[in-house]
């Protein structure tokens, strides 16, 4: 992924340049609290027919939640209440969930619709909305929050709905809350998707909420459009004309740049085996739009996919212009030879980006054949850590990541077979599969063990890998899995057979190291040492190898063997896994201290509000931004100016059991986590403040009771231009805005008082007061009329002058002289026609008609000024 240089620079500035020593680390302190480790050697007898969907259960998800909650157990307790619950009594992440999303749960139209009084935790609360006890839903919703940091909606509100006049109503129908909730198979699919996704999809700090259109409903704008077309068709048919075709297409999902995703049934469709269906690529597609916005924002653009490098590799270019109606047209065009992941990926770079990345993950084998090699490599490198998801690569990767388990199982097999006298028959291996001359009984025994290993490991993969069951079917097992596995096993077993001959204590020595392989401690240490170093991944690989060699030194193994074991450790903890693990650790650590971030945000705001409000300076700063909202510049600039120090203070306050951050690299990582967390908290504070100001404005407007209009009608000195009703209304608006004195911090005057101003000025030119004033000031009006008419003549003459220039250009000295006579004549000869046109248009103005102003009298006055006007136009244009 592209690094954001600005933030890296900021973090380096914050941390300084100290070199890391042997500091105690937050990650080690947190590890002390973590649960039991997985022990590779003890593979339970897993039923080979079981798939991921068969182990999806409340207990399974509960245990995942437990592991994640442990990581946040040492955070800062959350104060406050949610209904009957004291937040301080809940686990920290549950309390944070309720503090953030507690007001968006259940029936938002009726807070008493569900009785939560018997609940003491978040899953129970969500299950009350689902009206089921100890149901999977409550756990999946909460797990989504723990892993993704966003809200999988459990309410009857649909963001940005035009037809939702109040929560619960959609497409004009009052629907029960249950219609807005996810079906069981959709919940499984969300859970499986969480297993499929890695960074950047799992670190979308701006993603707020995923909600659904009620079950069985289409998006309201689609329904509205269809209904409108049907109405138009009825009228066409009545006129004996042919009706227009009604589009059958549905929108299946929408992704908003401010962090909302809305899904419709089509996007949520899950196949019968639950691992297929459009759910996976569709939801991943919508989440990838968020990646596009997120990365774009870091690069100071709206979409990552609009950057020139992506346009080039996807084959898009933008045609933009203003049409004859002065409308801006921005249309994406595609090169004729562009290779697309799907037809829809050809509609815009943003859709191409979302389609490519989602299909790269869900339909890897097919997508590899569809997009260009360079596009494939770009996607793999930047969004999947150099991985790919075609069938062969997936199998190869599984065998690689299981290599330490395979090594241990091979070691055990060689050890068992060397002691066993029980004859076994197997054709799995042939003598040529081993580098050492091996007895047939040993080959048979190892072959039988290899079949068991294959069965055990593939069964494990089927229930732990999201693609396990879809890839490891009977056909692929025989043709792809077995040959790759066999080669790996025979290599391990050959090595151990040789060692067995050389050193009888080898197994015992090596086994003690194998037991330590699952411990991620060495990998974490290496990751911290190498964080933000040049060639970070290479540095990590070398450091892990070095640390592992130190670990095996006590075993007194030959150098080559020691190095092999070190590589085995590295194989079990590859850089990308460790990076993902560490990011998750620090992210949940910062989340567990959300209360500190909340308090810091409140403090910064209060301090800045106290510093006085002014809108004189231009807004500056890019740490804290307010989406498409408005904010008075003094407050905005102050928050941005203090952001930098506030992040420092927050990191300084973070601790585990009283131990604060000491490791400089750890400090750097924490800055990178605290920055988006503070940004998000400030943004939500901004939304609250804006809403509060909105309510105050409403009350201000309500209290007006026509006073503003009375003031407008009391004195008409504000009327500057009476050439048309529109001009009078414009003058009225300007006055009305200036009369609204409410001190605005979070919205513009137009936003806040637009309606009041419009109502106060409505038909002001038809009021008795205005007519009285106008009668009184008829003479003044005549004078102003002449001025308006003259302006009209000048604007028409300017347009004519431009036409004349096209015919008789003055772009060179020669042309200037050559065409001078014709150019001047072109304008002069049209002058009378210009005046006629202006008088004609002016005469149709309602005020001119009303006052019966004689256009001919104005013509005389115009003629008096004619030469002066002509000279002015020629001077300005020729």
């Amino acid at each position, binding site marked *: 992924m592209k690094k954001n240089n600005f933030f890296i620079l900021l973090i380096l500035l914050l941390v300084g340049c100290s070199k890391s020593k042997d500091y105690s680390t937050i990650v080690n302190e947190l590890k002390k609290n973590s649960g039991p480790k997985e022990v590779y050697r003890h593979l339970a007898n897993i039923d080979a027919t079981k798939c991921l969907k068969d182990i999806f259960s409340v207990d399974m998800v509960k245990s995942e939640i437990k592991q994640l909650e442990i990581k946040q157990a040492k955070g800062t307790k959350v104060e406050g209440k949610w209904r009957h619950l004291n937040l301080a009594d809940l686990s920290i992440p549950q309390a944070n969930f309720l503090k953030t999303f507690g007001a968006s749960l259940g029936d938002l139209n009726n807070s008493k619709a569900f009785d939560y009084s018997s609940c003491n935790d978040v899953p129970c609360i969500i299950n009350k909305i689902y009206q089921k006890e100890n149901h999977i839903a409550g756990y999946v919703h909460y797990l989504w929050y723990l892993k993704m940091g966003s809200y999988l909606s459990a309410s009857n509100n649909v963001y940005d709905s035009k037809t939702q006049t109040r929560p619960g109503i959609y497409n004009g129908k009052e629907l029960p809350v249950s219609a807005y909730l996810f079906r069981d198979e959709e919940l499984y699919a969300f859970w499986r998707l969480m297993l499929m996704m890695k960074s950047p999809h799992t670190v979308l700090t701006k993603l707020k909420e995923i909600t659904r259109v009620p079950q069985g409903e289409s998006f309201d704008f689609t329904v509205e459009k269809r209904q409108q077309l049907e109405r138009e068709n009825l009228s066409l048919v009545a006129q004996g004309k042919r009706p227009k075709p009604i589009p059958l297409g549905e929108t299946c999902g929408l992704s908003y*740049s401010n962090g909302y995703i809305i899904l419709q049934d089509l996007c949520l469709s899950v196949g019968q085996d639950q691992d297929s269906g459009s759910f996976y690529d569709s939801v991943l597609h919508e989440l990838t*739009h968020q990646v596009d916005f997120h990365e774009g924002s870091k690069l100071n653009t709206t979409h990552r996919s609009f950057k020139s490098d992506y346009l080039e590799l996807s084959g898009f270019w933008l045609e*933009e*212009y203003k049409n004859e109606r002065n409308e801006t047209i921005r249309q994406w065009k595609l090169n004729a030879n562009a290779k697309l992941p799907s037809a829809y990926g050809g509609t815009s770079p943003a859709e191409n980006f979302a389609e490519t990345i989602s299909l790269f993950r869900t339909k890897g084998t097919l997508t590899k054949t569809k997009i260009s090699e360079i596009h494939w490599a770009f996607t793999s490198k930047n969004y999947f850590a150099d991985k790919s998801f075609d069938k062969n690569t997936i199998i190869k990767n599984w065998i690689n990541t299981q290599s330490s388990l395979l090594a241990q199982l091979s070691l055990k097999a060689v050890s068992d077979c060397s002691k066993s006298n029980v004859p076994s028959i197997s054709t799995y291996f042939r003598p040529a599969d081993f580098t050492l001359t091996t007895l047939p009984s040993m080959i048979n025994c190892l072959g039988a063990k290899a079949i068991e290993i294959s069965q055990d490991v593939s069964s494990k993969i089927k229930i732990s890998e999201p693609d396990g069951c879809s890839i490891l079917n009977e056909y692929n097992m025989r043709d792809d899995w077995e040959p790759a596995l066999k080669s790996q096993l025979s290599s391990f077993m050959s090595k151990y057979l040789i060692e067995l001959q050389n050193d009888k204590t080898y197994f015992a020595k090596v086994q003690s190291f194998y037991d330590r392989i699952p411990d991620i401690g060495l990998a974490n240490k290496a990751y911290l040492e190498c964080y933000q170093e040049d060639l970070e991944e290479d540095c990590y690989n070398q450091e892990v190898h070095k640390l592992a060699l130190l670990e095996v030194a006590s075993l007194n193994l030959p150098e080559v063997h020691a190095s092999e074991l070190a590589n085995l450790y590295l194989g079990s903890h590859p850089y990308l896994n460790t990076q993902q693990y560490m990011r998750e650790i620090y992210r949940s650590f910062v989340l567990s201290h959300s209360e500190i971030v909340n308090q810091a945000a409140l403090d910064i705001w209060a301090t800045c509000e106290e510093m006085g409000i002014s809108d004189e300076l231009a*807004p500056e700063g890019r740490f804290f*931004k307010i989406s498409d909202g408005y904010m008075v510049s003094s407050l*905005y600039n102050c928050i941005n100016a203090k952001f930098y120090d506030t992040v420092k203070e927050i990191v300084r306050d973070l601790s585990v059991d009283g131990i604060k951050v000491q490791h400089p690299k750890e400090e750097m990582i924490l800055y990178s986590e605290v920055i988006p967390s503070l940004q998000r908290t400030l943004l939500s504070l901004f939304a609250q403040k804006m809403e509060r100001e909105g309510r105050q404005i409403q009350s201000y407007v309500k209290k007006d009771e026509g006073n503003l209009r009375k003031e407008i009608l009391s004195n008409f000195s504000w009327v500057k231009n009476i050439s048309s009703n529109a001009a009078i209304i414009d003058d009225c608006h300007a006055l009305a805005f200036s009369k609204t004195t409410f001190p605005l911090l979070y919205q513009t005057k137009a936003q806040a008082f637009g309606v009041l101003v419009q109502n106060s000025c409505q038909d002001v030119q038809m009021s008795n007061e205005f007519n009285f004033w106008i009668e009184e000031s008829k003479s003044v009006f005549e004078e102003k009329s002449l001025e308006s008419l003259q302006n009209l003549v000048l604007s028409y003459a300017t347009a004519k002058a431009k036409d004349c220039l096209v015919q008789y250009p003055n772009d060179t000295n020669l042309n200037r002289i050559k065409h001078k006579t014709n150019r001047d004549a072109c304008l002069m000869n049209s002058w009378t026609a210009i005046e006629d046109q202006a008088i004609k248009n002016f005469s149709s103005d309602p005020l001119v008609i009303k006052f019966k102003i004689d256009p001919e009298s104005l013509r005389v006055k115009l003629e008096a000024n004619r030469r002066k006007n002509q000279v002015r136009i020629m001077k300005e244009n020729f």
Partner: protein
Amino acid sequence: MRSSIILTILLLSGCGVKKSSFVMGKTTRSEVISVKGEPIKEEAIPVNDGTILIYGEDEKYQLKGDIVVNLFKNPSNQERLLLFWKHKFKDCLTTIKKISKDETSHTSPEMEFSCPSQGVSVIYTEGSDVISRVIENEKK
């Protein structure tokens, strides 16, 4: 006269003035070319008598006949922030229009925030704080 205009234009562009020194509705093709050189590309557009001159950094001049009527360019520095424009257009009777978009799109529409009296509008994606394009046009 012409050379003094060009000199002014050069001086202004050297001083980092954000708004282009070309006057929309008045500046001619030859004036643009004399300042900026020959365009990288010239494209036809579906507008009567309309063409686009394309320069580096995605700067596009829309011509009607010989006259430059619109300029499309990327925002620079603080111009990238929507809030900057909200302040800049504070005293202007602004309009916000949705730019017609493909209705099958899954993402937020592009919006055009305009101040006709200043002859400037900016493009952003609804809900986002980042400006993607600045358009100069004739002042109204």
